[in-house]
C-alpha cells in the first residue's frame, strides 16, 4: 500500500542575509514514510531539525531539495513544489498540524478557534461548535473559558485549545510538535488516547515527543533525525523555530 506521506532527500538550510549571509544547514537527505494508521516519532536532541521537518511537510518552511509526497484525494502531491493555493487546499483537506505554540488571534473565542478548521471544510456553524465543545470538554478545558479568547489562558490551557483545534477535523495526515509538553499527567493520558484513536481511524501521524512514556504508548517507529544532520559542525546550533524570526515570534 502507498504510504500516506513520503519524504525523499529532503534538505533544508537557512541563509541569514542579515548576518553576512551565514548559511545554517539544518537537515540533508531526510528519508522516511508514514503509512495510514501509523505513528512515527521523530527523535533527536533540541536543534536537530525535527520541527523544521514537520514545518516543511506542512508547507510552512520551504524545502531546498528533495520530495515531500502527500496522498491527496488519491493522488500524490509534492509539497516541496506545490504553489500557495495547492498548499492551502492540502491544509484544508489532508494535512493537520499541532504546533508547539498557539497563535492566538485577538478577540476570537476559544471555541471558535477550535471550530475554525471544520468551518473551513464546510461544516455548519452549530455542528462545528458542538463538536468543538465536546473535544474541549474531553480535554478538560472548563466551559466558562470557551467564550473567551485564549490569549490570556495558562500555557497548558492554550496547548489544549491548540490540540483540540488540530484533532477536531478528520484529516488523513496529522503532524504533532510536542503536543504534551506543558500538560499534567491526566491530560497527557487524554492526549495519548486521542492519538491512538486517530491511528485506529487510519490517520498517518508524524510526531515530536520528548516524553518517553508518551512516545512508548503512541509511536510505532522512531526516526532518529540526527542521521540526517546536514553538517555536524553546524547543525547543533539551530534552535527550534526559525532563526530569522528570533525576535519576531509573536507576529500576529
Amino acid at each position: 500500500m502507498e504510504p500516506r506521506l513520503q519524504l525523499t532527500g529532503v534538505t533544508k538550510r537557512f541563509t541569514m542575509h542579515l548576518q553576512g549571509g551565514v548559511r545554517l544547514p539544518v537537515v540533508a537527505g531526510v528519508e522516511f514514510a508514514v503509512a495510514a494508521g501509523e505513528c512515527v516519532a521523530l527523535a533527536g536532541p533540541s536543534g536537530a531539525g525535527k520541527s523544521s521537518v514537520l514545518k516543511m511537510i506542512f508547507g510552512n518552511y520551504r524545502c531546498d531539495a528533495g520530495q515531500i509526497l502527500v496522498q491527496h484525494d488519491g493522488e500524490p502531491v509534492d509539497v516541496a513544489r506545490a504553489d500557495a493555493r495547492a498548499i492551502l487546499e492540502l491544509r484544508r483537506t489532508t494535512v493537520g498540524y499541532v504546533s508547539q505554540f498557539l497563535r492566538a488571534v485577538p478577540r476570537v473565542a476559544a471555541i471558535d478557534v477550535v471550530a475554525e478548521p471544520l468551518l473551513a471544510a464546510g461544516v455548519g456553524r452549530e455542528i462545528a461548535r458542538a463538536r468543538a465543545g465536546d473535544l474541549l470538554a474531553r480535554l478538560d478545558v472548563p466551559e466558562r473559558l470557551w467564550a473567551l479568547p485564549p490569549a490570556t489562558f495558562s500555557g497548558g490551557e492554550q496547548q489544549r485549545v491548540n490540540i483540540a483545534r488540530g484533532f477536531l477535523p478528520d484529516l488523513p495526515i496529522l503532524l504533532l510538535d510536542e503536543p504534551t509538553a506543558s500538560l499534567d499527567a491526566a491530560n497527557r493520558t487524554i492526549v495519548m488516547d486521542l492519538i491512538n484513536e486517530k491511528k485506529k481511524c487510519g490517520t498517518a501521524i508524524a510526531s515530536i515527543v520528548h516524553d518517553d512514556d508518551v512516545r512508548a504508548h503512541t509511536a510505532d517507529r522512531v526516526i532518529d533525525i540526527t542521521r540526517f544532520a546536514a553538517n555536524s559542525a553546524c547543525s547543533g546550533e539551530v534552535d527550534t523555530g526559525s532563526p530569522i524570526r528570533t525576535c519576531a515570534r509573536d507576529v500576529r
Partner: protein
Amino acid sequence: MSAPDAPLLLAEGLTKYYGRQLGCRDVSFSLYPGEVLAVVGESGSGKTTLLQLLSTQLLPSAGCVRYRMRDGVTRDLADLSEAERRFLFRTDWGYVHQDAALGLRMNVSAGANVGERLMAVGWRHYGRIRGTAVQWLDRVEIDPDRIDDPPLVYSGGMRQRLQIARNLVTQPRLVFMDEPTGGLDVSVQARLLDLLRGLVTELGLAAVIVTHDLAVARLLSHRIMVMKGGEVIEQGLTDQVLDDPREPYTQLLVSSILPA
C-alpha cells in the same frame, strides 16, 4: 486540485512609469475567488501604484489587468467603457481607503452613506434601503441609533467600519484595501482586523490589501507579495514568506518587528 478554478483578477506584466520615475515594474499574479493577497513593502515601494493600476484608477505604461465579470467572461479592463468601469466600482468592487474621508461623504448621514451604494444599483424602496443599512451598521458594530449621524462626528475606528459597510453592502466579489488599519490606535486596529477577517471568510471575498504592517498581512491574507523599489522581490504563502523569508529585504522586514 479542486477549488474555484478560474482566476477573478489577473495582472500581467504591469508596469508604471511616472515620467522617468518607476512606479512599479513587471508585476504578474492571479487572484482567485475568496483569496486574500497582501502587498507589503515600505513607503515608495510601489504598493499603492499597483493597487491603483489594478483598480483602473491609473493606466499602466505596459502590461494589463483582466477581470472575470459577473457573466463569467474575462475582460481586459483597458477595453471597458467608462460606464462599465463605473458599474464595476459601484457593485462588484469595493475600495477601502486608508483615509475614511476619501471613501465616505462626511456630511451626510451614515445611513445615506450605506444607502447610496444601493441606490446606485437601482434600489428605490426607502424602507428596504434603510433596513439594509441598519443591518450593515450592526454588522460592523456601529450602534444603529447612530444611523442619522454623519461620519464627521464619528471616531476614526467607526469611520473605517462605516467605510467597510458602505463597500460591502452591494456584495462585491473583490475589495481593494489601502492600509485599512493605518492611523488607528492598536485596540481599534485589533477590532477592525477581527471584523475584516470574519467578513472576508463569511462572504468569500477576494481582496488585495496593501499594508506595511506584517501583522495585518499575517492575520488577513493567504498569500503575500513583498515589494521593493517597484518590483516584487518575493511572494508565496503568507506564513511561509513570514516564517522562512528568503530575500535579504524580507528578512530585514520580518526581523524588524518588535516583540510585543
